[in-house]
């Protein structure tokens, strides 16, 4: 009975299907909000679902010159990585399904697994656009990873633990956005870099390199990558809002807080132009790192 319940929780709620549905719903929310900010109507609520179903039903064309196992396998690994990362974060306001000391690092790297798979998928093909997209994806990964990691580790130091469950418990009584505002800013902007949202969407700048690393993907592979992105959106939002916005008391609070951060992300997306990849790296390595190090300095001085 226990095993059956575990499987149900993994596949349906709060893992698996629930994650996919919530991820696509959040994608719809982002697109709709962006449209309203741009004074137009956006897609209807079922658009991301319809897109995913259509992609899964279409033919997958494997181009010449690729390693077919990598080509077919990478989307699956990417989606699996993000779904696994969701096991350790408090999805839907419930306590994380599993946890162990140090799972913060594991979650962050599982989320990066999606980016790595995208980069590898782009490097796997002979297409010019994919190669440039892959290079940019990996460059951007190196750029935002360090500041984002430091911004997430600041609260861990304050909470005295590297386990997400413990951090969220601590955050429930101490709203870290108030005590570590700079870290919050870096975390939010870093999340945009991780999700490759504009203005950090140089890796998939479609007016320059068509679709970046995923140019050659179609059908099922593209559908799985998109699902991986959707789940990454949920997991990333959950992580940042759980750590900085005071944990989740209930599913409603989960929706409200992660929705609020998504609102901020989309607002920034509407206001800013896409940055070139060298400007992105420059911004992160100059300002991002400095800001988060300043936050750490303040935290250490104040704490001690």
């Amino acid at each position, binding site marked *: 009975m226990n095993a059956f319940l575990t499987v149900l929780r993994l596949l349906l709620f709060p893992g698996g299907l629930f994650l996919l549905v919530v991820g696509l719903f959040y994608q719809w929310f982002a697109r709709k909000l962006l449209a309203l*900010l*741009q*004074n*137009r109507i956006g897609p209807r609520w079922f658009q991301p679902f319809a897109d995913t179903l259509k992609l899964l039903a279409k033919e997958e064309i494997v181009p010449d010159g690729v390693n077919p196992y990598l080509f077919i396998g990478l989307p699956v690994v990417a989606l699996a990585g993000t779904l696994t990362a969701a096991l350790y974060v408090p999805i839907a306001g419930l306590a994380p399904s599993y946890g162990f000391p140090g799972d913060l690092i594991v979650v962050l790297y599982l989320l990066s697994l999606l980016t790595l798979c995208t980069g590898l998928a782009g490097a796997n093909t002979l297409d*010019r*656009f994919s190669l*440039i997209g892959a290079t940019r994806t990996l460059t951007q990964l190196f750029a935002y990873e360090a500041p984002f990691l430091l911004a997430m580790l600041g609260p861990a130091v304050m909470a005295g633990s590297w386990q997400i469950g413990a951090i969220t418990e601590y955050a429930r009584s101490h709203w870290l956005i108030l005590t570590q505002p700079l870290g919050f800013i870096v975390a939010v902007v870093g999340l945009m870099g991780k999700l490759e949202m*504009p*203005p950090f*969407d*140089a890796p998939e*700048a*479609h*007016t*320059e*390199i*068509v679709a970046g690393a995923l140019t050659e993907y179609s059908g099922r592979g593209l559908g799985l990558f998109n699902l991986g992105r959707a789940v990454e959106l949920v997991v990333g939002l959950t992580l940042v809002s759980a750590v900085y916005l005071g944990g989740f008391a209930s599913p409603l609070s989960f929706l409200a807080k992660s929705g609020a951060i998504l609102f901020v992300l989309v607002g920034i997306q*509407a*206001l*800013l*132009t*896409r*940055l*070139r*990849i*060298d*400007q992105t790296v420059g911004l992160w390595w100059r300002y991002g790192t400095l800001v988060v190090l300043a936050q750490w300095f303040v935290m250490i001085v104040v704490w001690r």
Partner: protein
Amino acid sequence: MEPNPVPASFNIPIGPQHPALKEPGHFQFTVDGEIVTRAYVRLGYAHRGIEKAAEERNWIQDLYLLERVCGICSHIHAFSYCLAVEQLANVQAPPRAQAIRVLVAELERIHSHFLWMGVSAHEAGFDTLFMYSWRDRERVMDMLESLTGNRVNYSANILGGVKFDVDAAQAASIRLGLDFLEDRAHHYLNVLSKDAMFLQRTRGIGVMTRAQAEVMGAVGPTARASNVPRDLRVIAPYAAYPQFPVHMVLDTRGDLQARFEVRIQELFESIRVIRLILDSMPESELSVSMPRRIPAGEAVVRLEAPRGEVLYFVKSNGTDKPARLKVRTPTICNLNSVVRLVIGHQLADVPMILAGIDPCFSCNDRMVQVSRVGQGDPQDMSWAELRNYGINYYRRLSK
């Protein structure tokens, strides 16, 4: 432009199908990392044989054929054609007609610059500016629709004048629309010149000095942004421009930001000229009659389209069909500058530099016969030979 690019290190093909291009054209950029080292352009994807087709239609039908050379500058093409044919027939269109032609031309310039602003913002990844500037462009298209009867391809001209009049009610609604557009244009000038992130994409990118612009033969706002004082409405005024003069907008910086600002300032100039025309529109009839057979002769007219100088050569042999019609549009003058300027820039700047000249590929696809010096006669093919050549070419490709 070399005929065959050497398959060097890393060639990025942009076009004929690419999200950066709104119309088909083929570019090949050789990149080293992200820096462009060589560029090559190939056109011809939008060639429709308009110049040849014009020889088989009578003068009145050609007016509408030439209007459809381009969708954004359609009125300028019809306007140039009318001026050329009227010159051949030694007929002057009445003053009110010329004023209305200039009015529609300036409204078209406003529409074209708003369109261009949105497209360039989209190339930069600034989708919000794209959406807002195209929303405001709808206002000028509605004005044109209620004035002329259609949103594009206005069909305002006829040989010898214009088709419709501007009455007081329409003048009032045009003024209202202009107030709205001027307000928005001020806002966009503020955005384009102050937004720090957008400036990072446009300041210092694609710098073209005045000497370079003059050597490469750049025209239009692209040249004026490099301080080349070339605006046909000022240096060679035609139609009603002597009565309603335009001030030239120049900028000394020569980079992308200068091109943006020149076009917005031109918007203000166009709005001012339209208001002037509405205030003091000359009274006269709307058209004069033109003969069906235009006397033999040749005429060359040059007009200032939103993108630059457009040149029309019309030759008549006294019949009711033209003998030869040649259209030279501004984009083909400016494309050379793109090919030279992108070298040394990053790949991400390439769509911006291309958008900076406001390319219109369907305007510029004309057939040019090139004879290679020292290699004898140019290759002439009859229609049957050309058809066979095409069939064999594709048969070989599909093997």
